């Protein structure tokens, strides 16, 4: 009856007013106020991400969430500024006992934040999980590993089927999980409250809103200078800009070029870092028109990567001349320089048709880049058609060898080893399989059998020359630049090219 009366009188409006007040009141319940723009040194650092992190389980989780879990968990092997393995992490030394056996020494007396021992058995367990879990993100990296053993508390022995020099590099992207806790909780339970050996420990989360970590007082290494980090997220780039401008957050990650420029114009401190993400045009040499080497060369000469970077990205990308130069700043010894006149001469009057396939909306400005590539090819005399696809469909078609012509997409390495691109894109049995060649397969195996990266590098240079300069199966385009903005007085955010951030020295 009350409802009836409310409906039949001005109480209808009173009900609306009450609803407004109730809604406003409810928002105040059950969570922290993220609008605290105070500058207290003890308050957590407020970091804004581009999306809610997927699962915080490092075994199955997408690497985009690494920025969060890597505050609590640590890689088995640390890397230096040049992305090469160093002895400063959980694993302190490694030796190649024989061609197919690696022995690793684990730092003694380290514990997880729940008290479990972070010893050799834990390291072996994590590598095994990485190799064997069906949904493991890094499973394919460890396909050559045949045995993982922990003969004592500080020794781990890894055996491979064939010689593989880059096992220590691969361990730099494997994050240590506590065996008992992980088994007890399972993937979902672990992700709900991760436990690691890192400088921060899990503090809590408000579903869909934020994730907080706090300083680990018992951390074995140099302790964090701040009290913790609270991660929030905003999908919309303009929101990320507005939140940093309005001082609601201390650091705002992943600003696209337009927002980065706007932030700079507004006086916000923007840091731009070259990443290891490479955008490459793949030419399928097994099908027409690019089964004709002359047309592949024409396409490679027609595409002007410098013009793309200048015209589309306005400096927010770095022209990239090679396929296997995995470290930011590195370029190959030999490359192809655009030559429109020669490209036109090679095409002649044949007017061949080329299909350009790309993942629509997957990468910044990918539509414009594809159009620019197409425009260059048209100038050279190709007839171009465009096939924008969603990412999942594109990958499915690439695997099914259903993408003739050119496909443009990114190589996003989790670790800085050239074999990532060789195994993924160059070998006959690679994912793209667009450049089958027994010489490439032989050299790829030879490179892995070398003693170290230094010995392997000349072979990778040779492979790059074959794929990019001689056979023109790959036209490297550019490396993405990652922009992030920091609020006034915020310093010490250290962003690494492989999507890692060190917050331990961050202050505000």
């Amino acid at each position, binding site marked *: 009856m009350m*409802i*009836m009366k409310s*409906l*039949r*009188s*001005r109480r*209808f*409006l009173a009900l*609306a*007013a009450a*609803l*407004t007040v109730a*809604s*406003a009141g409810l*928002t*105040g319940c059950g*969570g922290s*106020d*993220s*609008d605290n723009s105070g500058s207290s040194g003890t308050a957590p650092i407020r970091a804004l991400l581009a*999306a*809610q992190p997927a*699962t915080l389980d490092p075994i*199955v989780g*997408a690497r985009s969430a690494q920025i969060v879990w890597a505050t609590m968990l640590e890689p088995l092997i640390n890397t230096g500024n040049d992305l090469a393995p160093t002895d400063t992490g959980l694993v302190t030394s490694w030796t190649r006992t024989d061609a197919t056996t690696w022995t690793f020494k684990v730092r003694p007396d380290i514990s997880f934040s729940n008290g479990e021992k972070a010893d050799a058995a834990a390291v072996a367990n994590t590598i095994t999980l990485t190799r064997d879990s*069906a*949904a493991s*993100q890094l*499973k*394919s990296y460890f*396909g050559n590993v045949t045995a993982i053993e922990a003969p004592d508390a500080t020794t781990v022995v890894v055996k491979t089927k064939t010689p593989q020099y880059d096992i220590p590099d691969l361990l730099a992207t494997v994050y240590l999980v506590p065996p008992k806790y992980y088994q007890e909780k399972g*993937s979902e339970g672990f*992700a709900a409250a991760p436990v690691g050996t890192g400088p921060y420990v899990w503090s809590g989360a408000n*579903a*869909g*809103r934020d994730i907080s970590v706090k300083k680990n007082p018992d951390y074995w290494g140099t302790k964090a200078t701040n009290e913790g980090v609270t991660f929030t997220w905003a*999908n*919309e780039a*303009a*929101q990320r800009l*507005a*939140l940093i*401008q*309005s*001082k*609601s957050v201390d650091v705002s990650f992943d600003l696209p070029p337009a927002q980065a420029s706007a932030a700079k114009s507004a006086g916000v401190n923007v840091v731009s870092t070259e990443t290891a993400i490479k955008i490459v045009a793949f030419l399928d040499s097994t099908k027409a028109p690019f089964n004709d080497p002359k047309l592949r060369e024409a396409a490679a000469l027609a595409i002007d990567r410098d013009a793309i970077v200048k015209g589309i990205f306005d400096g927010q990308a770095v022209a990239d001349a090679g396929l296997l130069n995995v470290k930011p700043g590195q370029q190959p010894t030999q490359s192809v320089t655009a030559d429109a006149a020669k490209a036109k001469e090679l095409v002649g009057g044949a007017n061949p048709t080329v299909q350009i396939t790309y993942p629509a909306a997957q990468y910044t400005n990918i539509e414009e880049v594809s159009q620019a590539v197409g425009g260059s090819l048209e100038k050279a005399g190709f007839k171009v058609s465009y096939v924008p*696809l*969603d*990412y*999942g*469909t*594109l*990958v*499915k078609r690439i*695997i099914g060898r259903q993408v003739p012509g050119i496909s443009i*997409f990114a190589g*996003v390495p989790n670790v800085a080893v050239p074999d*990532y691109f060789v195994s*993924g894109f160059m070998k006959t049995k690679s*994912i793209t399989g667009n450049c089958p060649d027994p010489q490439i397969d032989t050299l790829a195996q030879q490179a892995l059998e070398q003693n170290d990266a230094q010995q392997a590098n000349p072979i990778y240079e040779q492979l790059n020359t074959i794929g990019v300069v001689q056979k023109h199966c790959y036209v490297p385009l550019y490396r993405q630049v990652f922009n992030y903005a920091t609020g006034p007085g915020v310093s010490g955010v250290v962003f690494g090219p492989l999507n890692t951030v060190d917050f331990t020295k961050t202050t505000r």
Partner: protein
Amino acid sequence: MKASTVRRVGGRLASLFASLLIALSLAFLLGRLSGDPTATILGPLAPPEQREALRHQLGLDLPVLVQYLDYLKGVFTGDLGQSLQFYQSNTSMIADRLPFTLQLVGAGMALALLVGIPLGVLAATREGTWWDRGASTLALLGQSVPVFWFGMMLVVLFAVKLGWLPAGQSGSPKHLILPALTMSVYPMAHIARLTRASMSDALAEPYIDSARARGISTRRVIWRHAFTNAMMPILTIVVLQTGILLSGAVAVEYVYSWPGLGQLALQAIQFRDFPLVQAIVVFGALVFVVLNLLVDVLHSIVDPRVR
């Protein structure tokens, strides 16, 4: 209860169930058209055998009909599957996000009612005057302005330039003001226009003249006599608009990083997390069916003629 009433109620329930089934089937089919989720989960470099193993684990290698029947069984037992990116139960994720969307929709709709109804009544009772023209222009503007743009403008003005309110996210009542205001604009305009039209009709009825002739005050005539009779279409639109807002909060939640269902849906779409997309679509369909039922019930309460 009369047999005819039972038949009518039964028929209505059957039609709502059929609508629900169609929505569920469409959600299932759309999920299957959105590409291979294993590519997104494992990345492009995962070997085919790993991809196949994951497809098996997710049940994607089963015949489509079996997948469809499993899916329907899940929906009717409250199990909406597991998210491919978050590795969590979709039902619990929806339950976590729903309160935020309800807050936003509740505040937005309340604001829409508080402004829209008086605005419509004002226009109807002062028909042809500048009040009427002003209110109608405001209502037209409210229905024409893109929500996304309006939200961004509010952020720029009140958060970035003036610094009075948070630019987005949630956590305190202050965080709700701009999203709720943005959310209310369209339904506010709709309600104002409908109220004006409905009140104009009601005010032209002979019983209004009769009430005035009996010396009843203008305020009472307007609110007690005219408004009560003009309420039926307004109520209908309020309930239906609430449904639209519940499932259409995507733009507002996106602009303000509001952690509701819309934001979750967007992220699910971006990741091709089709079990989660399906779950949200199913939830939206259920909400619509329930709200349609509610409209029928309200009609029968407010207007005995439809009982």
